[in-house]
């Protein structure tokens, strides 16, 4: 039997328009396919896992279909005070012990949530709360940016736990293990919420929250770095990963010359500058610990060590330090002003952070990372005009204006109109989850149904799926550059296998859930009945609509049609179209299998 010619485009268009209309009481607006495609793209990049079901919701709240209005709509929510994740997310977050921000209170401020309030806090639940936000928060762009900063300033809960456990044991706490787990969770929460608060704010604030945060001070050894030969770990990663990156381009008649931004001498100087930053417990057992930042200037002998042949010691040189002065460094960076030794007021480290946050090299590096996050995840041209615009916008605020940089990217012609970059960035596992759950949400699965215990169990299962099949352990990444990004890392055979399996498990998880409430299959039928489709065409196009906003090729559509048009033995001529309800079991199996089929599609790994 020859394949039946496709007639999907018109039906799909109807499907989207119907969905848009159904989701909104507003007057029906007709959108072109190009507008819908662009809107879908905007949503996918600005949210964790947007599906087309978000489109009608956003369009219903926008004055027109223009992508810029969608962006403005999302940005308006992001800049709203107080931070509001929305009713659904807040309901779900209420099942966890962590405070839900009700204003722009600094979670590190005295009295906001005391460290002693962390009793019973678990890192797994913090991960699950992050998943809830990724999937259900209405403050979508803020969550995307919060995760961006969490990975940019990566720390590891386990490292903090181990350090705190040893500290508490040494100080005589009887319950050191439990305390360490709870306090490490507390400080990861605190740091994450400070990133959330400043997600589209000022870079210097983010840098400071990281540098003086308990997780980072432990993770990169600042807490134990002392003279006369301080630990270089934080100094190096501060330059390389958090601010400038190793090198920047300098325009030359022959093109970009990539010159170093710093050298080993600068790393040694910075290590000396940060030595003395430490953490102290201002309580004594049995009183609950109270961990505070402290500065203990290093007392360091000067001179060389006569016991070391051929080795010049690195005792800090008394007096002011000036960094980034080597002649081979990129002049783009600029030497620091002399940083005095043990100044009054801000510490030496604070002064260095001030310089780094305002350095054009930092502006360039962070802008490049944001370019790759929102525009396309390939190396931009070194002097891409959009990139240089971002660098300029950085300096519109001392310390780095993040919102201006992000808005510049989102308003760009590249972002809005370059169709070649659509479906070209990779999804992380948590994004795959958000997208998949969003699909279920979109088709009527109510995330608020059931008890708190049922919800927590389900979200916990989602977390384990992300970990087991995606290898993504939130708050526990090992390398200092956070979870992997980029095609060569995320698009591998294992990642694809894991991503496929992850989605199939999610279908099972939420499918089982819906059988206890309104059956997901009943939802299918309702939806299909509503639009008066009771043939395989409707099923195919509905799948496309749900999963890909109909950007599949004709060949892929044909494949899916062939699958659904055949019976369980692969033969054509089933009776789905002629006696639909009597063949419901076959239909259900075909739908289930079809969902898995869609889950296997390579596009599912892209956004």
């Amino acid at each position, binding site marked *: 039997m020859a394949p039946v010619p496709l007639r999907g485009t018109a039906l799909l268009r109807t499907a989207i328009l119907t969905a848009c209309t159904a989701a909104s009481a507003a007057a029906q607006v007709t959108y072109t396919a190009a507008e819908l495609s662009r809107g879908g793209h905007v949503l996918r990049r600005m949210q964790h896992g947007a599906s087309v079901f978000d489109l009608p919701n956003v369009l219903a709240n926008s004055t027109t279909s223009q992508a810029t209005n969608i962006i403005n709509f999302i940005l308006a929510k992001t800049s709203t005070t107080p931070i509001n994740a929305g009713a659904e997310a807040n309901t779900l977050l209420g099942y966890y012990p962590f405070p839900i921000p009700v204003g722009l209170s600094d979670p590190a401020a005295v009295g906001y949530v005391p460290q002693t309030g962390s009793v019973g806090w678990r890192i797994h639940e913090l991960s699950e709360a992050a998943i809830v936000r990724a999937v259900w928060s209405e403050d979508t762009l803020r969550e995307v940016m919060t995760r961006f900063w969490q990975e940019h300033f990566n720390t590891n809960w386990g490292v903090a736990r181990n350090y705190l456990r040893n500290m508490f044991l040494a100080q005589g706490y009887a319950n050191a293990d439990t305390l360490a787990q709870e306090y490490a969770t507390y400080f990861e929460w605190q740091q994450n919420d400070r990133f959330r608060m400043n997600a589209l704010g000022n870079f210097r604030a983010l840098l400071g929250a990281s540098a003086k945060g308990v997780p980072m001070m432990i993770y990169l050894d600042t807490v134990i770095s002392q003279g006369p030969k301080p630990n270089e770990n934080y100094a190096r990663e501060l330059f390389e990963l958090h601010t400038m990156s190793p090198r920047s381009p300098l325009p030359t008649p022959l093109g970009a010359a990539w010159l170093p931004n710093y050298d080993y001498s600068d790393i040694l100087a910075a290590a000396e500058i940060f030595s003395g930053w430490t953490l102290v417990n201002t309580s004594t057992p049995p009183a609950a610990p109270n961990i505070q930042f402290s500065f203990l200037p290093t007392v360091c002998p000067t001179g060389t060590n006569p016991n070391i042949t051929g080795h010049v010691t690195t005792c800090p040189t008394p007096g002011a330090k000036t960094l980034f002065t080597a002649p081979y460094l990129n002049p783009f960076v600029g030497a620091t002003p002399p940083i005095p030794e043990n100044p009054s007021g801000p510490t030496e480290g604070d002064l260095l952070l001030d310089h780094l946050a305002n350095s054009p090299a930092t502006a360039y590096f962070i802008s490049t990372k944001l370019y790759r996050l929102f525009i396309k995840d390939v190396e931009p041209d070194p002097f891409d005009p959009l990139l240089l615009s971002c660098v300029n916008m950085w300096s519109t605020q001392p310390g780095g204006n993040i919102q201006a940089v992000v808005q510049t990217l989102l308003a760009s012609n590249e972002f809005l109109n370059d169709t070649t970059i659509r479906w070209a960035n990779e999804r992380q596992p948590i994004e795959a989850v958000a997208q998949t759950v969003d699909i279920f949400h979109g088709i009527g699965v109510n995330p608020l149904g059931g008890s708190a215990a049922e919800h927590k169990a389900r979200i916990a299962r989602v977390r384990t799926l992300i970990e087991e099949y995606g290898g993504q352990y939130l708050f526990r990444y090992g390398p200092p550059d956070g979870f992997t990004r980029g095609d*060569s890392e995320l698009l*591998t055979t294992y990642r694809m296998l894991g991503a496929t399996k992850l989605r199939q498990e999610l279908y099972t998880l939420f499918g089982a859930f819906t059988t206890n409430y309104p059956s997901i299959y009943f939802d299918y039928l309702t939806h299909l009945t509503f639009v008066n489709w009771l043939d395989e065409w409707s099923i195919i196009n509905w799948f496309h609509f749900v999963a890909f906003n109909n950007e599949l090729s004709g060949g892929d559509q044909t494949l899916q049609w062939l699958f659904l048009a055949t019976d*369980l033995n692969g033969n054509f001529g089933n009776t789905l179209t002629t006696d639909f309800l009597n063949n419901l079991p076959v239909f259900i199996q075909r739908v289930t299998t079809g969902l898995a089929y869609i889950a296997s599609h390579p596009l599912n790994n892209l956004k």
Partner: protein
Amino acid sequence: MQQPNRFDRRAALKAGVAGSLAAALVRTSFGASPAWMAGSPHKLLTIFLRGGYDANSAVIPHGDPTYTSVNRRSTFIPQANSIAINGLNPLSMGLNPALAPIAPLVNAATPRMVFLHATGNIARTGSHFDDQRTWDTATTQCSIPPLFDIEEGWITRVVSEIFGVGFHAASVSESMQQMYRTRLRPNNTFTASRVVPHIRALRDYPNDAVSQFTLDTIFPTLDNKLVGNAAPPSGLRALFSGGAGKDAFARAVGSQMLESAEAVAQFVPTPYLPLGGALYPFGKPQTPPNPYPTPANAGLLWDIELIRRFFMNLRDAMALLRHVPDVNVAGIELGGFDTHSNQGGWNTTTNQIEGQLAGLLNAVAFGIASVDAEASAGAFGPNGSITVLVVSEFGRTSAANTSEGTDHGAASCVWVGNFGTGATRVRTSLTSGAVFNTAATEWPGLFSANDQTFGCPGNPSAPPPHQFMKIATDFRAVYARILRTLYSATPAQIDQVIPGYSSLTGTTAVEPAFIV
């Protein structure tokens, strides 16, 4: 028309009923091996120690006058407590006690394992990411953008430029190692043959980890039609073909996923049965009882989960190398070597080796001893062997810091072993025995990184003060020697794998004769 039942076909293949058909299918699906590689009985296992391990705490230069307890602080290991290296040993080199499992391989009458000390990257920057990329890609990275993270690996080039299309190599690791990565170029083009599988057990199935990498695991409920046939493409196989740009790349990866999963299902037995009493600890079943950890070395364990996964990946790599016909190269890795603090050393109070570094080294040594046990029992046939190559992105500072760790240095130490039932192909140095570059005229000295010619142009690798050891041998010479000797690669082929290799000059480019 009904499609053939792939499960029945596979069962038949496993039973040997259609052995010739199996070979034909493999050749058809995965492509033919090149002439220079065809039939090679020599396998290569790469082990990357991520984080830059402290080479001078593993293979210890007791004869260097600056290797002192003052410089080394708590990382110091007295000569009396290290494992002496037999034979010619001009610098009184010793092995960290945690390396005891490989000591018999090094100290055998005919050593099966040697060390290339003071080997490294002349363009070293001290960045983990820069320097790992350099070792992974066999290219120096003096002039690249900071986020240039998509360069293909040198093993990938071995596969694509020389082997051809097929399942010839695999990265068996938690993350895809860049050594095995495929590059998607900025203009969204790529070569399908460059997609090297990344394999890892989906979940922790202790009995048969790698055999979980199969279509049955992915699609347990799907029928035959969905998986489809290769020619003409149908089902998933059709889904994973075609496309353009990133979509095409994703589809090629999906296609490789199907091919490698089918190959695993066809050839890898369940459960995997190690030969020669080899053990991959923390897996099951444990018969005979697993001796690792014993009470004596339990204190060495640093991160049990990290080490457990290392052993699982090693076992799976061995399963692929032994059983999947075309797989010639596999790579595993172990992280945690970035020991900026509390690195550990010889504890004079407890009188034993302690700390994070020792725990990691002990695991690697135990694993290599298992590989030797399997190869010596004939895992690769009477004429076959396996070469184990252990590398790390850089060495560390020669004096400990005040948080009892070491920071990023330059020269490292490469380990090479060759194991099998025949004579080993490993050779010791005529001037310094089992540890190359340690004769008086060769050893650069622990604080020797004062040569401003190292590093990228205009940006010396080690401006003063000089805290670490400079490089005596370029790591690319080690790679080239392996390709030249094991696989008879021509200079042109080596230049394909290691760009610009034939134009390297100077003493660092001299290939040490560590393998024949």
